[in-house]
């Protein structure tokens, strides 16, 4: 078992087989730096619980295909990314920090799917981006491809 500590000082025990899906922790273990508790100063306990849930489910990924659990895993993944925006971003940051490739793929794809049909205004609001383009610059971009800004699928809602 490996012990992880979140930035709000909560400790979690995770099976080594699960936790080595994180390249970062795998390297730490290989280098012998994971003897006691591994502190994760960038991850809060709420996010870490999600990440551990994912790691436990994806343990022994290779075996899933043999045992016919592939569909089960797919369903889990679909359910897993069914979370709020901010939660999703926290998981992306954590996956990036811990270097968990598959989780990164899953969450970035989910973020892309949610953004795909959004209007510019909606994207700014969802990602808390301040528009720093001038009106002229904006108009120029629109004039280059006005068709990309029109269409029934474009969604101005923020969720």
């Amino acid at each position, binding site marked *: 078992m490996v012990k992880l500590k979140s930035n709000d000082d909560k400790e979690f025990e995770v099976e080594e087989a699960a936790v080595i899906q994180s390249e970062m922790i795998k390297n730490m273990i290989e280098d012998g730096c994971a003897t006691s508790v591994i502190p994760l100063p960038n991850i809060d306990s709420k996010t870490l619980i999600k990440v551990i849930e994912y790691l436990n489910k994806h343990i022994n990924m290779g075996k899933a295909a043999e045992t016919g659990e592939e569909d089960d895993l797919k369903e889990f993944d679909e359910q897993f990314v069914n979370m709020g925006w901010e939660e999703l971003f926290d998981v*992306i940051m954590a996956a*990036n920090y811990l270097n968990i490739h598959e989780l990164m793929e899953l969450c970035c*794809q989910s973020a*892309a799917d949610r953004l*795909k049909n959004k209007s510019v205004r909606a994207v*700014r609001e969802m990602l808390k981006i301040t528009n*720093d*383009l001038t009106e002229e610059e904006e108009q120029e*971009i629109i004039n280059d491809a006005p068709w990309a800004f029109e269409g029934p699928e474009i969604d101005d809602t923020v969720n």
Partner: protein
Amino acid sequence: MDVDGGRGIHFNEEIVVDILSRLPVRSLLRFKCVSKFWMALISEPCFTLKHLKLAKNNQNSPKILFLKNMFSLYLSSLTPPSLSLTQFTEDVQNLDWLYGGKPWSCKIYCCYDGMVLVGVRRYDNINHLILCLWNPSTRESTVLPSTKFLPSEDYTCGLGYDSTSGDYMILKIGYQSCSEILAVKSGSWRIIGKPTGIYSSWLSDMDSLAFVHGAFHWLGLSRNESVTSYDISNGVFKEIPLPDGMFVVPDMKYVKHGLSVLGEMICICSTHHDQWKHTFNVWIMKEYGVKESWNRLFTIQSSDLYSLIPEYRFSDGEVLLRCKHFDHCGYIFKTTKESSGFWPQSRSEWVWGARDRAGNCETVGISSPVESGDPLSTNIALERAL
């Protein structure tokens, strides 16, 4: 969650790129308006490359581009394995005709990395064939420099990418002798030599030169009939042997041969015709350049079809075919599955040409498609009938 003005939620650039590179081109063109940071990021050539690479690796949604009812161009997703041919006309995209007006004729030769090589004749000078590169996902196009070829001379051409120079290349092979190559960035055509020992080229049944393994391919007539290849990175002609017993020169039995690329492999369709039926034998060369690796992929006999071109191989092995049918104008599509049926079923719908294979990549053509070396998906061949 940290927030930082134009960047917003404090993601590092790597994460933003990871998310954005999964978006379709249309979304990206729109999202350039989000902030200065996003605009700069999406306009970066290395972002374009990453986007293309991801699109090429994603084999989930191959697309096909085709021209129907004269001048409506459609780009559509193919859904394997149970290809529903009725879904073909889902996403309509109109070709942004060059110089405004509609052309007198249009031929789409081929597609590579989502860019399409198009030949256009205008009403005011129907003898002059203008070659253009078109990126359907950004709707941008570039007219290529004109060539030294005589306007009347027939030729066929192909589009490929030279990874050594990092440039797209267009090769034109004349029926007579002359061949020219254009490196798109340099913008000027260069005459290339003739392959030694190859007397003539047999191009009549090819929409375009087939590009695979860094080389263009077509059927050549030499002492040993073969596939002729021209490697663009080192400028060398080579010959690749045909399967045993196959001859390029048509005799009484063999009506014709077509060379194309199917799933990154050279593919030859030989059409054998007798009184009542056509027999199509499709061969692929599983290991590039190795004669023993020619494999017969399938044989189709039909009394209704008189031409067949394999277009795309799905992951389950089923192949999408573009065919000519005695009862239909233009082309019809079917698959190798017996029960596939065909599309379009209505005789009033004409498909003039179509084609895919680039799989599915979409392009971020941020600047001109030429400069950024952008991609999209597809490929066609059509000749407008007036």
